[in-house]
């Protein structure tokens, strides 16, 4: 077909146009190249990388940021329980056979270069940085919400992030430098923002209280199914209560604790053991709990930061194969556990022995579920019938915490997680029994000894332990009582040296150290414990194959000073008593990793 005239004309025009464009291009391109060569032209956002400009677009992004914050919170270094425990009166922490001990925390010779304060500091601030990103982004996003649902979801995410930040600052406040630490309520961007001075302890407290109050008002009271493990309003109120208790504001503390006890649907689990292992996680007693699991991320190598299990505690605490002896029960506490008196009216304390004779448990349920004692014949350990069969109980480290370990589901930790150090045991940071006892403390201070007794006895009764107070009195008059009249002072003594350690030793967020500090008794406590003298008895038993074996020096006993049978190698807290200096050791020092990199720290 022949092209029409107009087509030809058009063609010509196009040719003309292109030549003109081409000529123009010859002139324009070099000009643009020269003119366009400003710095901005060279600064490009990498499209393959997520940046703050492309992220934080909706609640889905917020939720992802929140997950990262939870992951930071779940880093076991935020608490570092073993390190915290080592510097209290509850544990012998060494790793070596007695009497050798080079553990700087146990000996109270740590300083700003020590690993625990450095790691704890960094873990807390990393999680705070993540929470701050969510909090900042939530504020920006709040303007863009169009539906009620979006708004509500955004608020709940914000409340969770603020709880986490508040709790982490609560943790820092109680751990470091008398409570004076730098406050970050923003995401640092400019160079100068990376260096923040410490704020006064008062300001830090005010700051975290704001966060926790906001969380208490805006968080749900519970979560369902897969959402379990997220933080709740009850947890926020509980932490608020603890904060007031630690400050000595017993009135306000009591109000908060009572609120937790009455209004959030918590109750003590029938078995105290539900709070220590993978058994019954996220139960009715749990208030703040960090979830860990062995079911995911199995493909990762050992010690991978992305793992969702907890690798920090299990080998330190276990008494079974592959133990690192990171922290074993202190002698005085072993004796308290051994002597935790039974409530003979409780049918759970009745046992029928191999010959069919009816008798009573050797140790209280609380003792049996909390610690492994060589002669505990009523409870197995690492799937052996008798505790004494699962470990040698030698080297003068003879009582292990069952908490944080998997003694109830495997024959050894190695078997459960071959080639790796992992555990799926959730960390219960706050449980109702702790709130009961802290409420009791506040009540004692307010002069309400009966109210305090009621709550202490609730805790004791749950574990079939003899109740306190005169026989036939109290909430449970038919249960056995110790028939002692308590006043504020004697009950407080009982709480400090018996009830709290027996119920909550080696648990939670390391609060034994906070307690000893605020009661002002830490130095005396070490001095007093350093005077005690011990020796140990041997224990014969039948091993799994029915062979007779002896667990040498496995049952520790206290002896009066001067007794010829004393074995000085069992002494404890000798160095701690000499070295402990409250101005240096009551709190962790500001760590040297911060001091060296932050010129503004003390300005």
């Amino acid at each position, binding site marked *: 077909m022949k092209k029409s005239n107009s087509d030809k004309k058009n063609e010509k025009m196009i040719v003309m146009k292109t030549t003109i464009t081409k000529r123009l291009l010859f002139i324009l391109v070099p000009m643009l190249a020269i003119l366009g060569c400003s*710095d901005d032209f060279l600064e490009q956002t990498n499209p393959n990388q997520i940046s703050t400009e492309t992220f934080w677009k909706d609640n889905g992004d917020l939720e992802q940021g929140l997950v990262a914050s939870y992951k930071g919170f779940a880093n076991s270094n935020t608490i570092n329980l073993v390190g915290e425990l080592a510097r209290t009166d509850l544990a012998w922490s060494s790793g070596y056979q007695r009497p050798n001990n*080079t553990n*700087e925390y146990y*000996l109270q*010779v*740590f*300083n700003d*270069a*020590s*690993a625990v304060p*450095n*790691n704890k*500091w*960094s*873990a807390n*601030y*990393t999680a*705070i*940085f*993540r929470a*701050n990103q969510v909090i900042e982004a939530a504020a920006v996003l709040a303007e863009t919400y169009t539906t009620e649902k979006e708004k509500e979801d955004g608020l709940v995410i914000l409340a969770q992030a603020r709880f986490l930040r508040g709790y982490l600052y609560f943790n820092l406040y109680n751990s470091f430098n008398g409570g004076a*630490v*730098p406050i*970050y309520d923003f*995401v*640092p961007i400019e*160079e*100068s923002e*990376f*260096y*923040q001075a410490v704020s006064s302890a008062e300001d830090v407290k005010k700051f975290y209280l704001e966060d926790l109050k906001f969380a208490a008002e805006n968080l749900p009271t519970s979560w369902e199914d897969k959402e379990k493990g997220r933080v709740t309003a009850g947890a926020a109120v509980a932490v608020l209560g603890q904060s007031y208790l630690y400050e000595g504001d017993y009135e306000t503390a009591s109000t908060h604790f009572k609120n937790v006890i009455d209004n959030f649907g918590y109750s003590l689990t029938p078995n105290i053991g539900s709070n220590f292992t993978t058994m019954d996680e996220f139960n009715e007693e749990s208030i703040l709990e960090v979830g860990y699991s062995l079911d995911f991320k199995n493909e990762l190598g050992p010690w991978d930061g992305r793992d969702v299990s907890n690798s920090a505690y299990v080998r330190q605490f276990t008494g079974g194969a592959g133990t690192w002896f990171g922290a074993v029960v202190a002698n005085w506490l072993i004796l308290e556990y051994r002597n935790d008196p039974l409530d003979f009216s409780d049918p759970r304390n009745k046992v029928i022995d191999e010959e069919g004779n009816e008798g009573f448990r050797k140790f209280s349920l609380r003792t049996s579920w909390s610690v492994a004692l060589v002669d505990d014949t009523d409870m197995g350990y690492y799937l052996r019938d008798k505790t004494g069969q699962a470990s040698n109980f030698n080297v003068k480290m003879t009582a292990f915490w069952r908490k944080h370990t998997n003694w109830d589901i495997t024959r050894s930790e190695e078997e459960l997680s071959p080639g790796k150090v992992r555990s799926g045991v959730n960390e219960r940071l706050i449980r109702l029994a702790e709130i009961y006892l802290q409420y009791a403390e506040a009540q004692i201070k307010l002069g309400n000894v009966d109210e305090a007794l009621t709550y202490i006895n609730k805790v004791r009764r749950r574990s079939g332990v003899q109740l306190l107070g005169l026989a036939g009195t109290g909430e449970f008059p038919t249960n056995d009582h110790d028939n002692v009249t308590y006043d504020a002072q004697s009950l407080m003594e009982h709480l400090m040296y018996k009830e709290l350690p027996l119920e909550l030793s080696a648990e939670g967020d390391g609060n034994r150290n906070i307690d000893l500090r605020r009661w002002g008794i830490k130095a005396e406590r070490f001095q007093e414990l350093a005077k005690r003298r011990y020796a140990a008895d041997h224990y014969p038993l039948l091993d799994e194959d029915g062979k007779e074996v002896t667990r040498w020096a496995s049952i520790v006993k206290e002896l009066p000073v001067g007794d010829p049978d004393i074995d000085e190698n069992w002494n404890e807290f000798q160095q701690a008593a000499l*070295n402990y*200096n409250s*101005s*240096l050791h009551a709190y962790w020092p500001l*760590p*040297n*990793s*911060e*001091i*060296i*990199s*932050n*010129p*503004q*720290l*003390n300005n």
Partner: protein
Amino acid sequence: MRWETSVSLNAGFDMGLFDNKLTLSGDIYETKKQDMLFPVLLPPTAGGGNNAEVVLNVGDMTNKGVEFAMNYQHAGKVSWNAGLTYTRNDNIITKMSGSNKIIYFDDSSISGHDNDQDLVTALAEGYEGGAFFLVETAGTIKTEEELATYQAIVPDAKIGDLKYVDFDKDGTIGIGDRQYMGSGTPEFEMGFNFSANYKALDFSMQWYGSFGAEIINGNKALAYKVGNHQDLVYQWTPQNSTSDIPVNRNATHNNYRGQTDYWLDDGTFVRLRNISLGYTIPRDYTEKLGITKFRIYVAAQNPLTITKYDGYDPEVGNNGLSTRGIDKGTYPVSSQIRTGLQIEF
């Protein structure tokens, strides 16, 4: 963030005198870096964890230096050749532009021990890059009176502990007590080559000297920390009360921390790198056997090092700035003595 700029000035000469028997060459240079890009160590509070870094324009730096070389060749019955080199580089941080005026390097801990977190090298205005900032120490605490005075500064000090010097006089020991203590960069370096031939004998040697650098003996610190250094036999004890070797309390105790000058040593050394002496059997004899060259020699590599450094090897090297001069288990150079036959057909 801006681009880093670098301006270099350079001048040099080459001279040959006396029929090129004597040659001289020299170079003089100055390089100015502006807005130097550098990884800055962030405090853990900024949220990146321990030892997080971000690259920023930290400031300006100048390198000035000279390089001279001289060589003399002599031909004659004894023919010989001698060469001397001299290099000097003055590095200085002229400006720190950020709000942090002293930036420590994240990898500048000295021993590699688990609990060794003290960093020692830094960028700071007025000093060379990678300068050491350390707390001065003054021996051990030997008497009760000394202890009582010192406890005013360090309340948990015990007799036999290492005594830190309160440099900033603020009544405590802190980051302000660190002072400039040199660096792993030598003030100047020299080299000397010599070779000579006399009849069938040949001789050559090569010397190298590094002057004015400091070394931090991290090996020693590690051995102290784990408690197996031979010095510890002579540590302070009530029976050995004049010893300046502090008591072994534990690895992170102030006594054995990386932040002190206790591990600092003079790193000046002169080393004989190579030396060889050879004898070539005259060709008349060997040619009958179809051999063009038959030489017997004795040679040695690093046979001699003159230094006050008490570690294995003063030639620590390491990377550019951050670990320069830190002997963190640097594998020492070996010294060898060889004898050999050289046969060419």
